[in-house]
């Protein structure tokens, strides 16, 4: 033994065995009560943390893509709205032009028609007046001379007379 080397020579071989047994027993108890559960929990925790980190990274990427998509959609809708507005504007302009053109054409047509009507009516009035005058003068003449004149001869006579009436005024 080493008892000669150390102070006091109080080495008891039984103690050595006792301490080895005690230590191993303690180690076993530590393993059962503390080491096992604690290291397991530490492992679980580190697993969970790394899982959480992975998960967070994934969801962040997802959120980023979602935001991108929304941004793009927003941009698209803005463009669309602009297009709608501009289409409506050009449509409106076109329609306005059409309406104006149509109205102008209508007015022109109406004006022309009215002119025609007026001219026609004047003509008709003039013709009827001539006829009336002719008939009247025939009646007068027949009454005056008691003679039945040929109506057409009479008309010719009156026409020449009217023309003769108009001449001095024209010059």
């Amino acid at each position, binding site marked *: 033994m080493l008892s000669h080397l150390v102070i006091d020579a*109080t080495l008891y071989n*039984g103690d050595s065995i006792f301490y080895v047994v005690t230590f191993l027993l303690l180690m076993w108890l*530590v393993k059962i009560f503390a080491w096992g559960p604690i290291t397991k929990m530490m492992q679980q925790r580190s697993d969970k943390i790394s899982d959480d980190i992975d998960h967070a990274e994934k969801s962040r990427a997802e959120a980023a893509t979602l935001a991108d998509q929304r941004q793009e959609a927003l941009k698209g809708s803005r463009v669309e709205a602009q297009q709608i507005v501009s289409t409506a504007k050009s449509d409106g302009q076109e329609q306005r032009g059409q309406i104006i053109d149509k109205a102008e054409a209508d007015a022109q047509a109406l004006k022309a028609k009215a002119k025609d009507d007026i001219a026609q009516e004047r003509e008709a009035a003039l013709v009827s007046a001539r006829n009336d005058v002719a008939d009247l003068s025939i009646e007068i003449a027949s009454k005056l001379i008691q003679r039945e004149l040929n109506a057409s001869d009479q008309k010719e006579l009156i026409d020449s007379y009217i023309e003769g009436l108009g001449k001095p005024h024209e010059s």
Partner: protein
Amino acid sequence: MGSGTVSTFQIWKLTFSTANVLSGLVVFILAFAVIFFTSRHVSMRPSKGQNFLEWLIDFTNGILGGSIPAKEVSGFGLWGFTLFLFLFLSNQLGLFFNVAINGSAIVRSPTSDPIVTLTMSMMTVALANYAGLHKWGTKGYLTSFIKPSPMFLASNLFEQVSSFLTLGLRIFGIIFSGEVLLEMVWTFAESKGIPTLIAAVPIEMAWQGLSVFLGSIQAYVFLTLSSVYIGRQLEGE
């Protein structure tokens, strides 16, 4: 302690020292109480006790990781943790709880007896050699003693013995001297009644404080050196 007669008893022709057995049991119970009550509600979000235990586990694992290759360190974690806990409590026990009956100590620091510390260092050296044997096989293990050349056989063998002795005697020396000095302070306190008793209080407190520090350091050093020996076996010289 050395001064009184030592109380012993015998079982199967083995001699036991009462003080060592009782102190060992006290340390055993204390250590068990520590790990039992700090590990009651193990949960993902650690409570006070669990925090402490996890810190201690990280601490001892850190010591082991300093010398043992990272791949193999997990196999020694439990051993390192238990060793540190046991030595730490052993070193502190005698400072606060020192019982003597008829001049012979019954409860004191187990580590103030060389048989205990040498048992611990023997276990360490045995574990280190077993780890080497396990890793390199019988041939590799035996040839590690004649490296770098057969001339080194003697020095390699001597290194094993000196590791065993220095590891065990270092901690014994510190703790034993600490207790001796405490006893001297106590003798001084008793010597002239009240005045010396009062004078002894600050000295006692200062020395106890230092001893707590030294005891902690020694537990740390013991574990560090143990892991160095194991690491050396595992790395192969």
